[in-house]
């Protein structure tokens, strides 16, 4: 990959072309995770404070990733890179913990059992996000 001419998909950065689908899926997840966390914290926070705090954190990261990928500027790319990395780490760590230490997670979070409750999309999404950041990042110097 030495010389790459500007392709239409890349002209708009991370939020354009196929990236628009990525942002759409991220947006839906931000909405789903955010609404869920709000409900959990508002109605029954004391039941599972760790799980619900984690839900809220996950939701915040999804919102951050959505906005950063949509904007696609220089700083946004870094923010997107960080949030996708946090998501990947989160889904792996929480997914493993939710299987080994069930007591710590009595109620589901987006990341429980590697995102099983959401069709494993939380596991796949950050990987695609990171790949997309990498791909759109290759520009001729």
């Amino acid at each position: 990959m030495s010389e790459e001419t500007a392709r239409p998909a890349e002209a708009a950065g991370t939020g354009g072309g196929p990236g628009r689908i990525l942002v759409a899926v991220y947006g839906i997840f931000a909405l789903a995770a955010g609404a869920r966390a709000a409900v959990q914290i508002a109605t029954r926070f004391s039941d599972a404070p760790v799980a619900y705090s984690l839900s809220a954190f996950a939701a915040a990261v999804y919102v951050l990733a959505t906005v950063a990928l949509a904007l696609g500027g220089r700083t946004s790319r870094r923010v997107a890179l960080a949030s996708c990395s946090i998501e990947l780490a989160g889904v792996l760590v929480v997914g493993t913990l939710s299987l080994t230490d069930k007591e710590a997670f009595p109620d589901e979070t987006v990341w429980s059992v590697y995102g099983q409750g959401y069709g494993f999309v939380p596991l796949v999404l950050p990987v695609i996000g990171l790949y997309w950041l990498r791909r759109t990042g290759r520009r001729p110097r």
Partner: protein
Amino acid sequence: MSSALSTVIIIAALLAAAYSLVTALRDRAMGWDHLAALGVLEALLVAQMAVGFVKLAGDGKGPDDTATFVGYLIGVVIIPVVSAGWGLLERTRWGPGVIVVACLAVAVMVVRLGQLWEGAVV
């Protein structure tokens, strides 16, 4: 919940998704027809929200997890509007692609609404 209305919404969402998928595969940008489809879907979802709130207020025997139910009821209404805007910004096949994702999400959320109402899965 009204299962008839839910069925209509799910079918409408899937039809809109299929139609947008064809557009995306044909490498066309989204047009007025997609906006009209999203408009119909939005109208149905608003109707569902109204029916949902009336039932919650009237029946007295709502779902166990009322807060989550209300969250879904309101959240699902936002999706077609935002996806229309986001899709319109992209004048390529990825515009209707966004509509495919949005419509599938709406279908899934309406199914979840039904489950929450029945109390089958929480």
